[in-house]
């Protein structure tokens, strides 16, 4: 009898999902024949057997996730024919979710750094295999898992030089350049009204019959955990209306003039740039909460919440205050496309110092976003709306966008955030300031 293992089908693959068995116990197979389809982080591949025989047992159910190297099926010589009675009833231990090589309930030896990174990414330590002494999970093990779990393969899009084993000196690990405080950059998973969609714990019991069960993806787990964390942040919201007629005219003018160069600047790009230059003047807002201290960041990295199939993600434009509009527009377009394609690398969605969330395109006029910890504030951008106003006794019309800033009160006080918003409003209403 020979054992069929979950094979490594790509450089970055850590585990695979048995999408479908194409044979059943008792079927005779020839060497080279396909017995299953496997979903990897990159594609669906076929699992072939290497010798003739009869399928004795399928040890894993369809849909189960299996780490590389785990036995998924047994193929016998077939002398006695198929043992028809044996079905896919797998031994419980053989079909765990994730590479749980340990006894359940045993403590996973894990370095503090690895534990911290895992916590930040919502990764369950029990699913990790440790490469350190005594099976200790170290940073590289967690980083490999993050790369494998990133939508579309995350680091899988990196050059095929064994990306999961990236040396700890790689930027995604230390983040020392991106985050002035040193240490790994906090992952920037989302902040947005989507939090409201996270059901309250305990409401699902008993409702299973009327509901479709959707297993949590790693991204959804991370989102839920981080937004729950954020809910504990004492915060306040400030809303300010901004007259955007000059801004819209400014944008139309830029795009008309630069159309030949293929540059197209969006309102969001103008907002990112305006936020970045205003942050430069308000360093207190460009801060994060670090448990026992506040970190005031010297560089301005602006994140933009992007909705993607798998959830929400916040690609980050680094040094947004130092980039011209055309560079910024191109970069934000690229990042958004990569985000939707699930191709963002970890360093492209971490280390932000401030986040923008824009639901204007859905016609939402005003909303509050949930802070993306450990950042001190987030700005929620509503739709542009025409509205009447009175000037010198006459009724006129103007276009207004409402900006709502949610601030971590541990870091920022009302007057500080209000001062930032006032300056941001001025920058947007006199859009030449955006270029300064």
């Amino acid at each position, binding site marked *: 009898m020979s054992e069929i293992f979950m094979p490594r089908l790509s450089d970055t693959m850590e585990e695979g999902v048995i999408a479908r068995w194409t044979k059943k116990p008792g079927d005779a197979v020839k060497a080279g024949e396909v017995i299953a389809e496997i979903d990897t982080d990159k594609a669906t591949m076929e699992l072939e057997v290497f010798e003739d025989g009869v399928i004795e047992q399928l040890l894993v159910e369809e849909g189960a996730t299996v780490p590389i190297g785990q036995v998924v099926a047994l193929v016998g010589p077939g002398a006695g024919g198929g043992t028809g009675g044996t079905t896919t009833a797998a031994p419980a231990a053989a079909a765990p979710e994730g590479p749980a090589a340990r006894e359940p309930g045993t403590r996973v030896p894990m370095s*503090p*750094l*690895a534990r911290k990174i895992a916590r930040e990414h919502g990764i369950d330590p029990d699913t990790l295999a440790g490469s350190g*002494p005594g099976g200790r999970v*170290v*940073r590289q093990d967690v980083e490999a898992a993050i790369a494998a779990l990133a939508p579309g393969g995350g680091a899988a899009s990196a050059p095929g030089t064994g990306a999961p084993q990236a*040396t*700890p000196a790689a930027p995604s690990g230390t983040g020392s350049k991106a985050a002035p405080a040193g240490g790994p950059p906090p992952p920037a998973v989302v902040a947005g009204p989507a939090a409201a969609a996270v059901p309250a714990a305990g409401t699902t019991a008993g409702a299973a019959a009327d509901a479709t069960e959707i297993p949590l993806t790693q991204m959804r787990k991370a989102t839920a955990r981080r937004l729950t964390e954020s809910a504990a942040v004492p915060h306040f919201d400030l809303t300010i209306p901004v007259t955007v007629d000059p801004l819209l005219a400014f944008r139309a003018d830029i795009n008309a003039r630069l159309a030949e160069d293929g540059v197209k600047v969006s309102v969001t790009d103008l907002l990112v740039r305006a936020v970045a230059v205003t942050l430069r003047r308000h360093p207190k807002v460009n801060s994060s909460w670090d448990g026992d201290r506040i970190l005031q960041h010297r560089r301005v990295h602006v994140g933009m919440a992007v909705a993607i199939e798998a959830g929400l993600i916040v690609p980050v434009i680094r040094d947004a205050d130092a980039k011209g509009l055309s560079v910024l527009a191109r970069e934000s377009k690229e990042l958004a496309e990569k985000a939707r394609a699930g191709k963002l690398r970890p360093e492209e969605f971490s280390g932000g110092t401030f986040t923008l969330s824009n639901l204007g395109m859905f016609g939402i006029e005003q909303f509050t976003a949930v802070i993306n910890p450990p950042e001190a504030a987030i700005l929620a951008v509503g739709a542009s709306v025409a509205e009447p106003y009175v000037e010198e006794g006459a009724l006129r019309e103007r276009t207004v966008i409402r900006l709502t800033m949610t601030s971590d009160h541990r870091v920022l006080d009302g007057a500080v955030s209000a001062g930032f918003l006032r300056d941001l409003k001025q920058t947007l209403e006199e859009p030449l300031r955006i270029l300064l």
Partner: protein
Amino acid sequence: MNAEPAQITYRQALNDTLRAELTRDPNVILLGEEIGKFEGSYKITAGLLKEFGPERVRDTPIAEEGFVGAAIGAAMLGLRPVVEIMTLNFSLIAIDQIVNHGAKIYGMFGGQTPVPVVIRFPGGGGQQLAATHSQNLEVWYAHVPGLKVIAPSTPADAKAMLTAAIRDDDPVIFLENLALYNTKGVVPDGEQVAEIGRAAVVREGTDLTVITYSRGTLIALEVARRFAEEGISLEVVDLRSLRPLDRATFCESVRRTSRAVVLEDDWLSYGIGAEISATLMECAFDYLDAPVRRVAAAEVPLPYAKPLELAALPDAEDLARVVREVLAATGFRS
């Protein structure tokens, strides 16, 4: 090549600094055994008796408790004595004066008088001076509030830190090392006054932080150079001051590198490395990818026999081995 500034020895830097301070401030006096006529057991005070006379450069009897006590008394009355004790080992005879008097007087007498005394001595083994003459007991003094304990590793620091020590109003233990006296380095001209209590990142790196002081700094830099050839980047933090201890500098470093090794010349148990490790647990716990390791002297009275002495003292090979173990434990590949 001729553009390179001249280098002087650690010994010369100390000698120059004592001369400069004796010249600058008439309240500065030197006391110690054989520092005058004999010019010091390690020639740190060469020429100073001739230059400044026996009032200010005083040979004392072989009575450490007596002359350290005298220096503390003189400091209380306004002088700035710099005491040389032949080696750290003999300071034990004066430890009551240092710990129970020098360190306490300012606080216990309501701040009526500071005690601006400097007590210099070399520590360290490696010269086949055997167990009683080769000790690293600096941590005994670093344990005591009321004292400052500083340990320069380069000629430039020897100058700037001795100047700072003499001008400081607290009692300062100034730790030298037999193995450092002949080492050379560039020493900036003119007045240099270090800030006591500041560590220095003497080599920047990204992969692992070696935290050390005094003689250990030279070893760590040598090991870092060797690792650099393999593409491994070690950061070296020279503590420079054991009390006050600049925790922020090494904490910040380890939060970046996530790996730390302490190299200390004292014995492992209850040593400098224990304090550093405990601090790292508090300030960098979530950033550590492997346990902090310590490289220290073997826990024996230092043997006289050369091969045994060498085996007992921490050296570059010991440090390199432990660095490799920490790197391996975290799956590091250069």
